């Protein structure tokens, strides 16, 4: 079972002075996204069916699934760059 990322950690240090440290709790957003997606999905599929025909509905469903899996696979992504006095860290957990 794949789970979406729960926290994004962001740390930016500019020349040793400006410091930004953020912990973004994504796990608080996912229930809201789930509710919105569940509500919007039938409308999106209906609009696609009427506007573009049944062939595109499959593409929209596949695109949605691919997007979900891409978001889930973000878990574990880490980008860390450290220079003299500067630092950037983006970590998805």
């Amino acid at each position, binding site marked *: 079972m794949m789970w979406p990322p729960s926290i994004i950690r962001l740390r930016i240090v500019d020349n040793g002075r400006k410091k930004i440290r953020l912990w973004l709790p994504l796990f608080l957003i996912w229930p809201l996204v789930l509710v919105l997606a569940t509500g919007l999905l039938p409308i999106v599929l209906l609009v696609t069916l009427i506007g573009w025909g049944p062939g595109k509905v499959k593409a929209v469903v596949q695109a949605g699934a691919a997007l979900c899996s891409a978001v*889930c696979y973000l878990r574990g992504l880490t980008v*860390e760059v450290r220079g*003299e006095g500067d630092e950037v860290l983006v970590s998805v957990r």
Partner: protein
Amino acid sequence: MSEARRRILQMVADGKLTVAEAEELLAATETRRSDAETGPEDEAAEVPTKSRSRYLRVVVEPSEENPRGDRVNVRIPLGLIRAGVKFGALLPAQARSKVSDALKEKGMDVDWHRMKPDDMDELIDHLAELTVDVDSGTEKVRVFCE
């Protein structure tokens, strides 16, 4: 017809392999099959266990002569690359050609139209064996899977 043989022939039909390359691959497949027929013990000894790497790592470290250099540590989940390719396969043909043109401008002359998710799986499986070590004197660059 075996699955491997069918895939090789399909890749020739798709224009991904030349006839000479396909011949080599088919010969290698036949050799493996004949090895397998010699006995299960031999086969077990020959076939390495496939390691399931999860991340592509890029690490840049300053060398001892340049300790103040930049440090880079990037960890990319391989599943994200797979998912990206699957997502890219859903792009309309016009958008794909634009993406290819943009990549070409950046020096990546790869024909993404022909890249299928199955090919990417194969490529990622083989990435597990990849290790790149570059020591330029001022910094060390390592690219590997873990």
